[in-house]
């Protein structure tokens, strides 16, 4: 722990400037903006949660960022996707594209719902947020490849991926796919809604890319022991 407590509570520049640093002292904890968490009564808390609450009461908390609210429409995964789609810091355009995509998906699904026979009506998913999450889940790879040098040659070695990395890869593939492989006249939101609906039903180029990665990892199974971590 650093020297005196007053020094920990000020905006801070570390003495040795690392590549990734922030103006918050590492003493600060992350904020929790959701309302429901604070309405759980004392009796229903697990011991870990109680300890966490006591820790939070003595530690300073960081400020909530601009993109975070306590409303029900606030979705961290969607915010991450908007940030990844953003170019040159223009969040208004990125958020606009996503909103149009969700609207487009809803329209298509509602059309399908009305055209479907009675038995199939309940199966068509109309909630665009649910479709988005499910599509992203279907695009996430389970295993990844790393380039490891051994004896002068580089081998593609299958490695396990963390949750964050998997989510990042799914989003990245989705965005690059929509930017590269579209006709000059189709708009971004149109192409994105097509891809998301395809990924929801496990078709489309992104899911194909995921399967190819899995096949490569399977074929390189022999080099798995090159991994040392």
């Amino acid at each position: 722990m650093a020297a005196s407590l007053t020094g920990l509570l000020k905006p801070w520049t570390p003495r040795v400037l690392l590549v990734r640093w922030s103006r918050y002292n590492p003493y600060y904890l992350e904020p929790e903006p959701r309302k429901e968490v604070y309405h759980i009564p004392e009796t229903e808390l697990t011991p870990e949660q109680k300890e966490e609450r006591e820790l939070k009461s003595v530690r300073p908390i960081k400020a909530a960022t601009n993109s975070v609210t306590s409303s029900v429409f606030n979705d961290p995964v969607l915010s991450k996707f908007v940030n990844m789609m953003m170019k040159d810091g223009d969040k208004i355009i990125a958020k606009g594209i996503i909103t149009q995509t969700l609207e487009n998906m809803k329209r298509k699904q509602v059309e399908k719902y009305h055209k479907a026979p009675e038995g199939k009506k309940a199966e068509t998913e109309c909630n665009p947020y649910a479709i988005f999450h499910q599509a992203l889940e279907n695009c996430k790879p389970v295993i990844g490849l790393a380039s490891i040098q051994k004896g002068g040659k580089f081998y593609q070695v299958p490695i396990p991926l963390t949750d964050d990395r998997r989510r990042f890869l799914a989003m990245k593939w989705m965005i690059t796919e929509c930017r590269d492989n579209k006709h000059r006249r189709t708009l971004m939101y149109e192409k994105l809604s097509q891809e998301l609906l395809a990924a929801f039903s496990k078709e489309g180029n992104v899911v194909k890319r995921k399967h190819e990665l899995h096949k490569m990892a399977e074929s390189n199974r022999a080099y798995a022991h090159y991994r040392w971590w």
Partner: protein
Amino acid sequence: MAASGGRTVGSFLWKCGNCCFNFNTVSSNLTRQVLSRQLCVSAVLHRKNLAAAGPEKFSEEFIKKQVEEFNIGKRHLANMMGEDPETFTQGDINRSIAYLFPSGLFDKKAKPLMKHPDEVFPKQRAVQWGADGRPFHFLFYTGKQSYYSLMHDTFTKALAVEKHQDRLRGKDLFTQDAKQISLVGSRWLLKEELEELLVETISEHDYARFIQLMERLLSLPYCSVEEDFVQRYRRQLEIQSSKQQVQPLQYDQHGVAYSTGDGKQRKTATGTVLLRDSGSGSISINGTNYVHYFPVLQDREQLMFPLHFMGVLGRFDMQCSVSGGGHSSQAGALRLAISRAMLSFLSEGQVETMRQAGLLTPDPRIKERKKPGQEGARRKFTWKKR
């Protein structure tokens, strides 16, 4: 010299009980062991631990005389300033000295000082050996007798706890879920604080070993037997929510409660808010409606965040004024101002929940400066091979 400086001021006031003193003869060179007036958690960091450096420099009678002189001088000073000598605090002394001996010097340590001798003279150890030259403590020749005797004590306690556990096992009364010492809300003593306690210097390695040993003691299931011993080496952390300044509610001529959030900064944008109770949820910013001022949904969501979080969306009327920065930073500044204005209407528990949601911390992120030798904050110049 610390001694002469303290003595000068103290004895000065003792001799000059009749308010006749000479400004020129006050020596204000108090170069070492001057305790700063900061109210930080541990003031140990501001003075060097000279106690361990050598044999004692000040005898006990000398220190006692200094204390007497200080107390008498304090009473004289109180009489001089026309205050009650019984309730004259250190803060009053500081203010009086700053008034009577105004100093144009910039170095805080060079200004005139009047403090209790315990804070001015370092704590030191009495002579460690007797007349025959034999040391009193059996660990004297280790060089760090207090530290090693502390380690021995801790280990003895650990052994005692283990023996207690074995006895309980023998009687079949041993349970894994015995009462544990509560460690949340306190921290271990810092290395400097431990040095002050032991009155000798220890190295980083020594300190790490001490903490390791204490953690080992805490890992035993029945360590609550030695709780007093452990708590002596822990310091309480203060509750953060008590640090929020909550302004009292003000009432205007119609009896309606209102409160102001003072100008809050977010990345060069400042905003002020006037929250009025029993309103209809209308917000006006710089005279215009908030829907026209913030066409972007994200900014309006930020304004609503504190109100929605507390569930008081339609209750308040707001008049905001904001300047500087861009649209996002103005929304952030207003959010902070609204949260601070709302504090007057909320209870303690709700203030703590708002703090944990991240609504009450001013965002310290600013534009990173450009560095020399680079094109921007991070971007380097184009690399040329030759």
